[in-house]
């Protein structure tokens, strides 16, 4: 026996080592997910590798910061101007969108909906990867001590990246780092919904690293270019985050479509990510006095009309009113002014109601008819004293010292862009 072992010593050791590894592999596969018998070896490797990765990323960021802060300032002014213009444009767009969002929230309140809000995110730096084509995961520089926990969603500004798989740093000597499973790994799964057709499916990675939307029935029509969003059904990613766009949609071998999706986030060039550390599950609240309409923002920039001297009560009219005598009046100006700070956007359509209030108008009240009904009611507090887009509310308007006079809504500035606001 001894001679046989001596003769085949190398081969025997090879078989023994292979047997041990196969046994260990089988035990890991057999065990439930979550129990980690191999955690120690993972911690050792991560502890050996990640400090160097963190150091290199730190040096890289420092060098990059030095370059950008001191040497790369040419063209910053031009870029700043462009960014300011972009911010202005986005502000106007945001106001328009917030109106839509407000309407949606009110409807959700009516229907008793609850939705998830991202309340806390943690920025993290990508410091390493698995280095394997078969394991599409990466490491970030935030771990247990930073509040990261398994199954937290990881995103960028562009879209969904993946979810936290393993978190290190529970023990004092462990490096605080986490492993993130990317959405293009074949072990990942994200509940997804198509933006226009509202078809739901499961987003998975393929062996080749592509992202595929599964479980969409073959008789459905899915157009390339359609956006894919998270559905929220997986209880990891909040609903509505961009995932990607449909590249191709073909009939699969079974009952389902074969839909390939291009991820919104560039998964091969990730540097910084956001970990969603807290989600709040609450009913949406309706904001009653915080919204400002696009027209209000534009009105802030309109040229001012000089103050008029005080007029007799009951005789003051606005230029708009003067030009359109006898037109149906929607509301009293007094009511209008009173509502300016209290009326929620939902009440705005009532402002467009004609005649009924005309008969009930009190004596001495000035009725106004702006050229555009959109500017009749301000749903929130006036942005500035001199930029009030509505006409003077009372019959005896007193000019405020130090404040510019009110602006007629009939004087649009041709140089300013006109937003496409919905008729009230």
């Amino acid at each position, binding site marked *: 026996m001894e001679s046989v072992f001596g003769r085949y*010593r*190398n081969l025997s*050791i*090879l078989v023994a*080592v*292979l047997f041990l*590894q*196969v046994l*260990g*592999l*089988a035990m*890991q*596969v057999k065990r439930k997910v979550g129990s980690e018998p*191999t955690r120690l*070896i*993972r911690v*050792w*490797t*991560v502890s*050996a*590798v990640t400090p*160097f*990765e963190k150091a*290199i990323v730190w040096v890289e960021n420092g060098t990059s910061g030095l370059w950008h802060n001191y040497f790369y300032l040419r063209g910053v002014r031009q870029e700043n101007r462009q960014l300011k213009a972009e911010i202005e444009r986005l502000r106007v767009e945001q106001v328009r969108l917030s109106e839509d969002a407000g309407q949606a929230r009110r409807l959700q309140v009516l229907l008793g909906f609850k939705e998830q809000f991202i309340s806390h995110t943690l920025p993290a730096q*990508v*410091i*390493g*990867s*698995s*280095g*394997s*084509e*078969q*394991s599409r*995961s*990466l*490491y970030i520089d935030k771990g247990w001590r930073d509040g990261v926990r398994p199954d937290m969603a990881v995103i960028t500004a562009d879209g969904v990246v993946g979810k936290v*798989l*393993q978190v290190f740093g529970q023990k004092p000597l462990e490096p605080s780092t986490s*492993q993130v*499973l990317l959405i293009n*790994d*074949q*072990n990942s799964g994200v509940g997804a919904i198509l933006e226009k057709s509202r078809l739901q499916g499961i987003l998975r990675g393929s*062996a*080749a690293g592509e992202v595929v939307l599964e479980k969409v029935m073959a008789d459905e029509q899915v157009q390339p270019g359609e956006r894919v969003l998270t559905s929220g059904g997986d209880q990891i990613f909040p609903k509505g985050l961009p995932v990607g766009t449909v590249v191709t949609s073909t009939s699969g071998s079974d009952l389902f479509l074969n839909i390939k999706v291009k991820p919104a986030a560039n998964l*091969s*060039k*990730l*540097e910084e990510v956001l970990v969603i550390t807290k989600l709040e599950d609450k009913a949406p609240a309706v904001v009653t006095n915080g919204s400002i309409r696009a027209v209000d923002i534009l009105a802030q920039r309109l040229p001012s009309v000089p103050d008029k001297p005080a007029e007799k009560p009951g005789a003051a009219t606005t230029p708009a009113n003067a030009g359109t005598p006898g037109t149906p009046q929607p509301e009293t100006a007094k009511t209008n002014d009173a509502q300016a700070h209290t009326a929620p956007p939902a009440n705005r359509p009532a402002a467009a109601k004609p005649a009924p209030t005309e008969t009930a108008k009190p004596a001495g009240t000035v009725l106004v008819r702006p050229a555009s009904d959109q500017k009749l009611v301000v749903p929130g507090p006036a942005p500035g004293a001199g930029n009030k887009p509505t006409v003077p509310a009372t019959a005896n308007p007193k000019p405020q010292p130090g404040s510019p006079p009110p602006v007629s809504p009939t004087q649009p500035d041709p140089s300013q862009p006109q937003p496409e606001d919905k008729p009230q």
Partner: protein
Amino acid sequence: MPITYTSQEQVEVYRFNLPTAIFVPLLALFLQAFLPLRFSFFTNFDLPLLVVIFFAVARRSPVSGLLTGATIGLLQDSLTHHPIGVYGIAKTFVGYGASSLGVKIDVENAGTRFLVTLFFYVIHEIAYFAVARWMLSLSLQWSWGHELGSGLANAVLAVGLFALLDRFKQRT
């Protein structure tokens, strides 16, 4: 220059000092984990495999080769999210085979190193795919074109890398 050794020729066996034996594999693991973040094509390379082949053919000891392969493979496994042992088994095969081959042929010239690396890269991939598919039920796609292309790239890299690592070799 003869490629195979005869029984009369003395086979040169090298050894490495402890820091080299520890830090070179760790450096390979580190680079393998870090470089794909900056250069995505780097996932086609397998630096830990090249290190296993280099140490195995230089030491020319099958036991040492398979243990080196198993250790580096298990460490590489621990950076992935898969169960530990897939790379370990594949690199154990490679370490054993490369050291056994190193006893029989001259692996000091660039041409032989190129061919040896290409051969063992394919062996490594076959072993990896077999274990991953049959034990872990991973649906991996085998593509000869991709594997041969990656094998050629690794072989080219190995020629340069082995020349660099030759500086750390010590004669026994």
